[in-house]
């Protein structure tokens, strides 16, 4: 199971899991555990947003928090994303540490004014007199015909604007560590969660720990081609990594973990070695994270490094609902592997993995609730 494969890699890389014990934990539970531990530690942390206290508790990630911490610290809101975001900013400026939860990233479009014009800028435009330590949790939807407005990964809009941090952990270990880091961070952080990651498991330490921002992780070693995945595309790349191995291609997979700050060096080092860079994003290409990663790498490396690049992401269309079109809309392990193969072996006979093999276990399992 790729999620576990990933988890093991992650464990061996960080060493953190081993150090403090740890156990297999689901992504969704890792999110919750992070919040519980931080709320226990710091009375200024509070959680709010639409449906955080309802019987489904944001797909389980906030379930039981209100019972544990009370209505004062865990509360539902009206459907008023714009004002609720401003409220979080104001509370943060007053010294608290709000966590604002959105069940779909698409809804952030309703609060862009507060996020872009206030949260990102307050510290600077007020000459350092205030800080805005807030976390905006937001989920990317996928599958089962969620369609145009419940499937977007709009983080590149936030990457564009100085003053915000943006993280997109791909596994339970990083989800917990990044969320704790985000809560403790003195800046507004856009925290990106992919719905399909929620049930995936990884070894996760019991105690509180942070995963530092700005440090990418090599989650699979290889020498022929470098693949960078964002959020759940890390998982898809890891599966492609296995498929590629069967075709004799050795691929390196890198998880940037945080997009702002972005650890270009780790990617650059790998790409200098393999001379092929495939960036697989969870969104559209134009002005997306993939554009930034490619531009940064090649601006720094220069043509003498001889790196060939390619980007993959959403098809340049709105997300359709028909299942066959939806399948074509997203990169998947097979299309990723195919592209990576072609990059790595431009002169070899074109190769495609067996599509059956390429299905991800977790994808086949997934269906509603949404």
């Amino acid at each position: 199971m790729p999620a576990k494969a990933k988890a093991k890699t992650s464990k061996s890389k960080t060493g953190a899991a081993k150090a403090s014990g740890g156990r297999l934990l689901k992504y969704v539970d890792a999110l919750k555990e992070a919040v519980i531990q931080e709320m226990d530690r710091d009375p200024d942390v509070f959680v709010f947003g639409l449906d955080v206290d309802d019987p489904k508790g944001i797909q389980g990630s906030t379930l039981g928090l209100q019972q544990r911490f009370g209505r004062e610290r865990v509360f539902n809101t009206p459907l008023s994303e714009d004002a609720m975001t401003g409220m979080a900013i104001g509370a943060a400026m007053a010294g608290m540490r709000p966590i604002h939860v959105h069940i779909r990233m698409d809804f952030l479009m309703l609060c862009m004014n507060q996020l872009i014009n206030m949260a990102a800028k307050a510290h600077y435009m007020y000459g350092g007199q205030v800080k805005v330590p807030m976390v905006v949790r937001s989920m990317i939807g996928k599958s089962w015909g969620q369609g145009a407005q419940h499937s977007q990964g709009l983080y590149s809009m936030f990457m564009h604007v100085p003053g915000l941090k943006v993280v997109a952990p791909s596994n339970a270990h990083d989800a917990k560590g990044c969320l704790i880091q985000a809560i403790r961070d003195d800046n507004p952080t856009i925290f990106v969660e992919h719905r399909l990651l929620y049930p995936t498991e990884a070894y996760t330490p019991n105690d509180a720990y942070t995963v530092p921002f700005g440090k990418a992780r090599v989650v699979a070693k290889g020498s022929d081609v470098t693949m960078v995945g964002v959020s759940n595309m890390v998982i898809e790349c890891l599966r492609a990594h296995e498929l590629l191995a069967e075709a004799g291609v050795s691929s390196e997979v890198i998880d940037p973990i945080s997009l702002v700050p972005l650890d270009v060096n780790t990617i650059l080092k790998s790409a200098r070695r393999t001379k092929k860079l495939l960036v697989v994003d969870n969104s559209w290409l134009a002005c997306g994270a993939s554009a930034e990663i490619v531009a940064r790498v090649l601006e720094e490396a220069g043509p003498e490094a001889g790196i060939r690049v390619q980007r993959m992401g959403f098809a340049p269309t709105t997300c359709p609902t028909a299942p066959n079109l939806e399948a074509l809309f997203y990169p998947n392990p097979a299309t990723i592997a195919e592209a990576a193969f072609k990059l790595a072996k431009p002169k070899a006979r074109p190769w495609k993995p067996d599509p059956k093999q390429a299905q991800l276990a977790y994808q086949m399992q997934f269906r509603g609730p949404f």
Partner: protein
Amino acid sequence: MEPSSSLLPKDLQRIYKSLRLIRRAEEEVARIYPSDKIKSPVHLSIGQESVAVGVCDVLGRNDAVSGTYRGHATYLAKGGSLKGMMAELFGKDTGCARGKGGSMHLIEANANVLGSSAVVGTTIPIAMGWALAAQKRKTGAVIAAFLGDGATEEGAFYESLNFASLHKLPILFVCENNGYAIHTPLSKRWATEHLCARVATYDIPTFRIEDGDVFAIRNVTAWAVDAARKGAGPAFMECRIYRWREHVGPGDDYHIGYRQKTELQPWIETDQVEKVGTMLDAADRTRIDKAVEKELAEAVAFAESSPFPKPRALLENVYAG
């Protein structure tokens, strides 16, 4: 409320047919759902049909509606094609949105069903724009903008009320207040329940209907549409109503704890489908029920047998023209 005396048997039959068709269509969606042939999140309006039917029965073909993601009823009541809807839910190329929209984005330009949105509140200002166009072009048409109680918490609602009143736009705002946004009751979301009083401060006539009565809804709509056609501007109707099933999906949700089944009981007792049904001649009712089943079976068969979109459809319709 009794049907206004001007309603003839054929009117009652038409209203019943619409109520019955919507109820049965959604029951059918729920029946099919576990087969996984419908790969689209469905928000059923079972129990809420009378709002869409009462409103749309008054509207003409040139009038329009805009709906929410809980929009099957609005779509069908306004004359959206049942086949087009079923095929859309099945993700087929023959769907009303060519399989690209799904249950939350039903549309039928021919019937002036303006399309619905999965982001709460989004279609309110869009409906207002349609009304603005009708006003500028002097078509005499009116639009009914459906919204949930949750949508009244979004700022765009107030911005829209202000502008619609300022420009006397031909629009009827219809709030389907079912008391919940997903699983959260009004008490956790509304400071007060003085919604009509608030809307009235924009000099918009307001109406509140407590019991989902299809005739009362129809009467208010008739008044409002008539006034709007004469240039009097917008009106607002709040309909208390009840969602019988779960928020999303085919089942019910009385077991998960946020509401009690006792809340449902009075609504079942005043079920408008049944109520209007009993007003008909038994023979008429049977005939209509049969016709509904036939239409339904045909629509499902149509959806089943229709092809999925061709792969190239993925790249079509990104840009118009």
